[in-house]
């Protein structure tokens, strides 16, 4: 996995982590408009990032479209990525 792909998947993971947290908070605070704005912004960003990532590097989910041959099985799988923490 090259540096560009690594940066992109890390960004995707960061935004989706935000979404998990805002969604959990909103479950019990459905009228918090500020939190909802935060969630909706992250959601928009996530959709765009996900589309860009998958167009470049193949499907993240087995429901996604793929070039030939079927790219869902391509490595690395998430536990095989050597994240660079610098």
């Amino acid at each position: 996995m090259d540096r560009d792909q690594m940066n992109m998947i890390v960004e995707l993971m960061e935004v989706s982590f935000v979404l998990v947290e805002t969604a959990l908070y909103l479950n019990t605070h459905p009228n918090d408009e500020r939190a909802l704005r935060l969630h909706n912004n992250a959601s928009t960003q996530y959709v765009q990032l996900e589309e860009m990532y998958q167009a470049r590097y193949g499907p993240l989910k087995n429901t996604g479209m793929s070039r030939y041959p079927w790219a869902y099985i391509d490595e690395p799988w998430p536990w095989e990525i050597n994240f660079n923490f610098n």
Partner: protein
Amino acid sequence: MWIYEKKLQYPVRVDTTNPTLAAMIIEQFGGADGELSAGLRYLTQRYTMPTSQGKATLTDIGTEECVPTGYQLKKKLPR
């Protein structure tokens, strides 16, 4: 319904080999009072939850608890 995505929730850096810590983390995940059993408990309890907030929260935290952990850890353990 669950959908797998080829990414981690959060990458974790493991820079030393520590089998004692690894055993603790594995116990915390799959052990007696671990996340796996908690997750299944939440996903079952949600069916008798009276409020929509409760149903949503149990569904989502039940899902979270089922996320497999220790990906990078596995690699560092002696076989």
